[in-house]
């Protein structure tokens, strides 16, 4: 299949930026799963090939119990919605034949694991690329395909550590802290998707396939780029914590992320109309930074009986970039998200929806890309039955 050669789409279909692009995801993984989903949001189709015993991603937390009693992975379900799926054990000739048939009609293959590990499992990546020279292959590892640490064991947590990101999150007086969830897996997916698009674009000119490799550790280093560059510039050694940034204040129903710019101080005073803020020590930004702990205490006192959304909207009305710590519940009930059609009910065939998932985070000409919320049909024994 080729990228291109499309008639002008109707307005309702304009969100399909990619025409006739087909993705095969082999085995299933968090990074490859999101990458496939993002490409689907641009109009591609994505097909998941699982081993016959099921993708390991079906066991990735968080887990939940569906209405039929089956234990399911919210991670797998979120990332697999809208995809088709089949099984193939690639270590054997039948599975390899099946895979080759799929790849003959595909543009992109997404795999997770080192080249040599995949070979041990029966997938000859280099042979595959020779057989399908048009293919853009996106390969995800934790620590890299080659290198001193390529064989190391580890995952999200170790990637955040080795990429320098873990060192930068948290407070100065405590241990380094991870970003919650699967941020390096997901960030790797973002970088992989953009890199695959570079390869697809280049392929229009030269028809060549490409192997694009991304590692979670390299992704972390890419995201955490400022501390290395600043050190090189002036020897500064950046670390987590510090005295600037938002005040995270306890409200009646959660936390306000109270952020103001230096020029907003009069607005802060106007918002609260409290004489304590008129203290001369707070008259300058330098003073406010010097006496930050005391200022935090006063602000905390001023917001503790108010809701976080009340502070948010009041401050934003005055033009201050204040936020609030949105929980999953806040996000699912967000009027902003509702108005933009950002969330969709996951469709479990034959049963009530267990919950909502985000769509892709962009709109095209005012239209949200419509990825199906149906899960791929299960064609093999379910996992984790009650």
């Amino acid at each position, binding site marked *: 299949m080729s990228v291109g050669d499309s008639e002008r789409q109707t307005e309702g279909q304009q969100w399909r930026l990619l025409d006739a692009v087909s993705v095969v995801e082999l085995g299933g993984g968090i990074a490859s799963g999101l990458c496939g989903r993002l490409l689907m949001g641009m109009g591609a189709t994505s097909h998941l090939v699982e081993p016959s015993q099921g993708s390991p991603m079906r066991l990735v937390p968080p887990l939940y119990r569906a209405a039929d009693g089956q234990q399911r992975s919210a991670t797998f379900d979120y990332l697999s919605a809208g995809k088709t799926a089949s099984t193939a054990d690639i270590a054997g000739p039948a599975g390899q034949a099946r895979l080759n048939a799929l790849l003959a009609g595909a543009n992109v293959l997404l795999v997770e694991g080192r080249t040599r590990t995949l070979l041990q499992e029966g997938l000859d990546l280099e042979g595959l690329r020779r057989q399908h020279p048009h293919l853009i292959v996106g390969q995800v590892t934790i620590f890299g395909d080659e290198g001193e640490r390529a064989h190391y064991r580890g995952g999200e947590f170790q990637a955040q550590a080795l990429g320098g990101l873990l060192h930068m999150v948290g407070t100065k007086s405590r241990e380094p802290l991870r970003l919650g969830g699967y941020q390096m897996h997901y960030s790797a997916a973002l970088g992989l998707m953009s890199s695959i698009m570079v390869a697809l674009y280049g392929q229009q000119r030269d028809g060549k396939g490409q192997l694009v490799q991304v590692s979670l550790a390299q992704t972390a280093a890419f995201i955490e780029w400022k*501390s290395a560059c600043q050190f090189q510039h002036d020897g500064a050694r950046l670390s987590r914590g510090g005295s600037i940034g938002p005040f995270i204040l306890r409200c009646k129903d959660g*936390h306000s992320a109270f952020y103001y710019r230096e020029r907003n101080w009069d607005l802060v005073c106007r918002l609260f109309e409290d004489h304590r803020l008129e203290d001369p020590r707070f008259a300058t930004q330098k003073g406010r930074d010097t006496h930050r702990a005391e200022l935090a205490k006063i602000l905390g006192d001023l917001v503790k009986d108010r809701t976080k959304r009340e502070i948010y909207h009041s401050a934003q009305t005055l033009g201050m970039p204040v936020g609030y710590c949105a929980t999953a519940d806040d996000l699912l009930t967000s009027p902003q998200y509702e108005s933009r059609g950002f969330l969709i009910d996951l469709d479990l065939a034959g049963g009530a929806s267990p919950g909502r998932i985000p769509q892709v985070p962009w709109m095209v000409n005012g239209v949200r890309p419509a990825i199906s919320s149906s899960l791929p049909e299960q064609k093999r024994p379910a996992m984790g039955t009650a």
Partner: protein
Amino acid sequence: MPGPLSDIRVVDFTIVTAGAGATQILADFGADVVKVEASGHFDPFRHWTALTGSVGGNEDTSSAPFRVINRSKRALSINLEKPEGQRALAEIIRKSDVVIENFRRGIIEKMGFSFEVLQKINPRLVMVSLSSQGASGPNQSYASFGSSLDALGGIMSITGYDADSPLWSGNKLNYPDQVVSLLAPGLVIAAVMAARQGNAPLWIDLSQRETVTALLGEQLLSYGANGTLPGPQGNRSAASADFVVQTAGQDEWLAVSLSDPADVAACAVIAEREDLAETPLVTQPDGTVAISEPLRQALAVWAAGRTKHEAMASLQAQGVPAAAVMKGPELLDDSDLRMAGAFVQVPLPDEKGQEWQRGLPAHFVDPTLTIHPTAPPHIGEHSVEILSDLLRLPTGKIDDLIERGIIGVNNATATA
């Protein structure tokens, strides 16, 4: 050799990180990224002092972060308050594929370049707007910085030492800006491909807040299904016993994950507490997994006498997932990252040498897809070149525009 994107031209209004980081990736791959700075409103990142309080100089490329994410671009300084400036820029847009901006909603329209206007100038155009919460909805005009988006997007709600203390990623990391800058290049390329197929004009409305939430999709689904609200869990996780231990030195740590009895047994042997080899991993009330406190303490004692790299090597040799918590300066010397192309040499402005900067987010095995970044531009450094090459204006006309303040030229010491 020109890069794969060399036939794409981008009119780049973006400033600071999220947008400029995206266009940096496009520029690295050969796109002609024309960084537009309106007279008197230069990219504030040029003099960004938030990290350390100092830029180390007064020049407009003194800020190291600015140099990184604005490399490989051409800079145009133009007075958009004058009709002639507007007309000149409109002509450049007519010869371009993409206009990209990350202003607060309403600003690009006030500048005279709304999507309605742009599509009249260039019906083949792709406009990409990176905004806090999107170009529609009740909060569309709300302001934000990365910190607010940590909070509003939901990542703060699952990051923190304990449930009562959510934390943001910090202004040094500014995670929401980074993820948008990774996502946007792919979107831009796909949109250009679609536009060239006749599916134009196109306006891509990318929400930073939605981007952060899209990286938490499983948390939302889990909450909807389970009713248990996800919250900060420190370094713990539901898949394995994750924790950090302090190693020798100042603020040096090791990140360890134990997921099965073999990991536990290996740790016990390494820590010389074989008696703890069969202590089970325990699921906590919050769903996370923990090792026994005696084993954790034994490992801490063992680790305290070793560097983080020694400890990492020892544990990994026994198959235990463990990783040194690296600091920024160490990344530059890391051989694995260097091999993967995580850092590249980039010329400094004015031929003052070179510096190491971040490379690409991925490694392309085809060697023809290596990048060759160029120095970041001074304000208006390419104004003359752009007007000459793109608009074919004669020298006399260009000189006249400069003299009348319609166009600005190389002004290294200008400040906003």
